[in-house]
């Protein structure tokens, strides 16, 4: 990926929680759980070559991606959608899977380090 896209925008979280530490932790927990769920469902979808599973995972994470600017993950998922629709689960899917895993893990690492 050429440009440096954001993994997550913590400013949006700070604007929302307004110095409420408990609320901030709850929100970070919820974002972490959402990305972990995405990671497991999306990878299962690739391994089972199941477009409905991938679609469900994509659908479920959509608000979180937009609300907190998980830009890199959103772009990779968008590229994956095009790849799967055009080429199925063969050509290029392994590289996409690795790129997706790296992006999901980067978000989780940033959330963990931010606490």
């Amino acid at each position, binding site marked *: 990926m050429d440009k440096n896209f954001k993994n997550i925008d913590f400013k949006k979280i700070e604007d929302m929680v307004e110095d409420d530490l408990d*609320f901030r932790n709850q929100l970070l927990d919820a974002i972490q759980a959402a990305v972990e769920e995405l990671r497991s469902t999306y990878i299962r979808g690739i391994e089972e070559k199941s477009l409905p599973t991938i679609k469900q995972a994509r*659908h479920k994470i959509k*608000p979180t991606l937009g*609300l907190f600017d998980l830009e890199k993950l959103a772009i990779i998922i968008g590229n994956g959608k095009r790849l799967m629709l055009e080429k199925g689960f063969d050509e290029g899917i392994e590289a996409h899977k690795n790129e997706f895993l790296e992006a999901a893990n980067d978000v989780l690492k940033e959330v963990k380090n931010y606490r």
Partner: protein
Amino acid sequence: MCINLLIVDDSDVDILIVEDAISEFSDTINFKSFSHPENFLSYIESIHPEMFRMEKFIIISDINMPKINGFEMLERIRAQPQMALVPIIMFSSSSSHQDALKSLSLGANAYLTKPLHIDTYQKLICNTIEFWKHHLQA
């Protein structure tokens, strides 16, 4: 009069955003959230039918949830006579025409797509609740 706002959404992120949005109504809204539709249905069944006549309820529900999805839940709620007039707003990240039509056909009072900006998301929730609050209190 206090309104009981019941939210059903398996995403904790969405529940927290709604909870934060409605904090300004804290003195007029009793808020209860459910991550699992089956828990919500059990809760509804545990309430005495008379309560739905004495108190006011608003239900906001996601659609895409595991085990029991929002459509099935909606169907089961509307099948209960005491729930016939409770406002139900379906709130989904899907902008699909079919999802909206199906929700409304099954008895939802409104279908809203989840915005992707926090301010818009929270404003939409507040305006929706404000509208139904006035409607129920009229």
